[in-house]
């Protein structure tokens, strides 16, 4: 029924559920992984909450306030003194609800009993799982490893041609969610919100890819699992915003690395918090005061945002969309023009500081910049040249066109039209939702020197919904998160679809009339 969000919606219990007999159950969750919960910790930290759990009725829509069962769940064991202390509490007549202890042994026993149905039996690459589980939880998520695992379980590899029935499909989706949670548990414990947001976003889009490929519907367990993943993203976004408020100078980790990291961190935050603000409008994650602060922060974000590579355009575009849909047309236009100008000028054919394509992460870009000078060579990028090419210039230019910024487009046309504009075209709609598409074509477009504004307008407004899975159309916010996980999916087509979806949701049109 409910799992705690670290937001305004607190019901005093971590999990609220209704068992098959119709009884309401409230759970308090505690973590002592691999250890034993001792009496001192129990008395100081847990007992007060437990008394609250036992004595206070569940406050939740639909609960009649009559009776509920209480559970304390611990992923470690309990010392005997704690068991005795809980027994004393249960004998207290003033506490109406009695508590049941669930320990690590119970959890393992259930896992063993439901193993086949719970754990993904399709998992072949246990090495990738271990590497992911043991990777540095303070670092960015090794997204490719998780993607490999999810694609195995969700039957998305080229060799996965066997038909999957609905029951098996449901099990695969729930297993994939369980695996995502377990594989990223160390990141969650380290409060690495970016990694958790990335992981659940990847899970959701991979599940959508599988739904599309296997022609299934999002219902029953699949729908509920996806809703849980969306809630996990919402929680992490809200916690990220809390951390930003707690650390207004936005410094994290070693201060020596700060000058290099700051631009990337600010740009990433602007994108994610714009998505949170969009998300909050639909799901009410934040209390009014926090919402107001976020709104103010997004209207005047930190000035250290940096276009460190073409991949940085995706979070900034999300922010520009937020400005557009929140009455900041002038600011949005100014920022968009600045992004377009930077992008087009930096990737000019003669540029010696061209931005790396969106297929390269910040770590890869920074490794080349601060690494040993090997005459432009780097281990990941080799000697790949980016000058004269762009993946992001066209979608950004189309945003300018949709906003009717004709004069600015005319001024930029000379530089824009000499670039080779790239886009990766997938063969099947579901392939839009995987990190690396198995088949497709890289299209390069060279615009004619002379081009018509009217034709450009038509192109900028043309949305091709058949190019992406149908389920993705109803989830524009997931779309914006997907751009931030896989920036090369920020294409002209997906940007136009996002814009249309947001316009429909807001009931208005944000494209300006021709200013001619």
């Amino acid at each position: 029924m409910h799992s705690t969000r670290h937001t305004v919606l607190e019901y005093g219990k971590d999990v609220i559920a209704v068992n098959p007999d119709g009884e309401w159950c409230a759970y308090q969750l505690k973590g002592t992984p691999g250890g034993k919960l001792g009496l001192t910790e129990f008395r100081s930290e847990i007992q007060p909450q437990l008394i609250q759990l036992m004595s206070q009725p569940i406050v939740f829509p639909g609960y009649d306030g009559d009776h509920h069962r209480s559970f304390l769940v611990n992923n470690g064991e309990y010392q005997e003194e704690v068991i005795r202390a809980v027994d004393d509490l249960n004998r207290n007549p003033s506490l109406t609800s009695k508590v049941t202890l669930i320990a690590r042994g119970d959890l393992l026993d259930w896992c063993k009993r439901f193993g086949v149905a719970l754990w993904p039996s399709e998992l072949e690459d246990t090495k990738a799982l271990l590497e992911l589980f043991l990777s540095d939880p303070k670092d960015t998520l090794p997204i490719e490893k998780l993607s490999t695992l999810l694609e195995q379980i969700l039957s998305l590899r080229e060799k996965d041609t066997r038909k999957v029935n609905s029951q098996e499909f449901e099990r695969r989706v729930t297993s994939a969610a369980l695996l995502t949670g377990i594989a990223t548990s160390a990141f969650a414990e380290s409060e690495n919100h970016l990694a958790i947001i990335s992981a659940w976003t990847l899970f959701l889009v991979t599940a959508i890819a599988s739904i599309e490929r296997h022609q299934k519907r999002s219902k029953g367990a699949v729908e509920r699992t996806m809703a849980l993943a969306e809630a996990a993203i919402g929680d992490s976004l809200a916690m990220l915003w809390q951390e930003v408020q707690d650390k207004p100078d936005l410094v994290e980790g070693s201060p020596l690395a700060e000058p290099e990291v700051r631009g990337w961190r600010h740009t990433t935050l602007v994108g994610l918090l714009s998505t949170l603000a969009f998300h909050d409008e639909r799901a009410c994650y934040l209390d009014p005061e926090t919402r107001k602060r976020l709104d103010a922060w997004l209207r005047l974000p930190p000035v250290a945002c940096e276009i460190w590579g073409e991949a940085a355009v995706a979070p900034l575009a999300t922010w520009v969309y937020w400005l557009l849909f929140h009455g900041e047309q002038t600011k949005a236009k100014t920022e968009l023009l600045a992004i377009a100008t930077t992008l087009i000028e930096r990737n000019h054919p003669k540029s010696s500081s061209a931005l790396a394509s969106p297929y390269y992460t910040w770590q890869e870009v920074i490794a080349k910049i601060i690494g040993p000078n090997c005459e432009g060579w780097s281990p990941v990028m080799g000697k790949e040249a980016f000058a004269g090419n762009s993946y992001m210039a066209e979608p950004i230019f189309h945003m300018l066109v949709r906003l009717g910024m004709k004069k600015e487009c005319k001024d930029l046309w000379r530089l824009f039209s000499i670039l080779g504009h790239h886009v990766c075209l997938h063969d099947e709609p579901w392939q839009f939702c995987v990190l690396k598409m198995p088949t497709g074509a890289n299209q390069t477009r060279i615009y004619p020197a002379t081009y018509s504004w009217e034709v450009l307008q038509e192109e900028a407004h043309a949305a091709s919904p058949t190019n992406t899975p149908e389920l993705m159309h109803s989830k524009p916010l997931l779309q914006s998160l997907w751009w931030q996980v896989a920036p090369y999916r920020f294409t002209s087509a997906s940007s136009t679809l996002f814009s249309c979806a947001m316009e429909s949701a807001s009931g208005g049109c944000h494209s300006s009339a021709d200013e001619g």
Partner: protein
Amino acid sequence: MIENLADEMARDMSHHMFGSIEKTLDEYDQTVHLHGQPLGPEAVLEMLGKMRMDFDDAGNPVGLSVIVPPQLSERWEWVVQQIHEDPVLRKKYDELIEQKRGEWRDRETARKLVG
């Protein structure tokens, strides 16, 4: 053995790439076939005539690359020497470059968003 395999792979990739380019260029009449005749200056000038050329701010051609198989490299050098040293060929070459420069100027002057 690994080196042989790598060479073979590189050769296959190169054949595939040039095969694809040739197919596309044939479709758009952008190839010059010598029909068994040796490579000569006239064929090179014809090739240059079919190409779109860009120029730098000083008016010099930019972005031209020539790929010739090893067995043709000596012949290629001879052809280039002929074009530069034979007055008739040199005149033809200069006229061709001037024509291309004019086309480039027209193209860049017309580089605009209209409407």
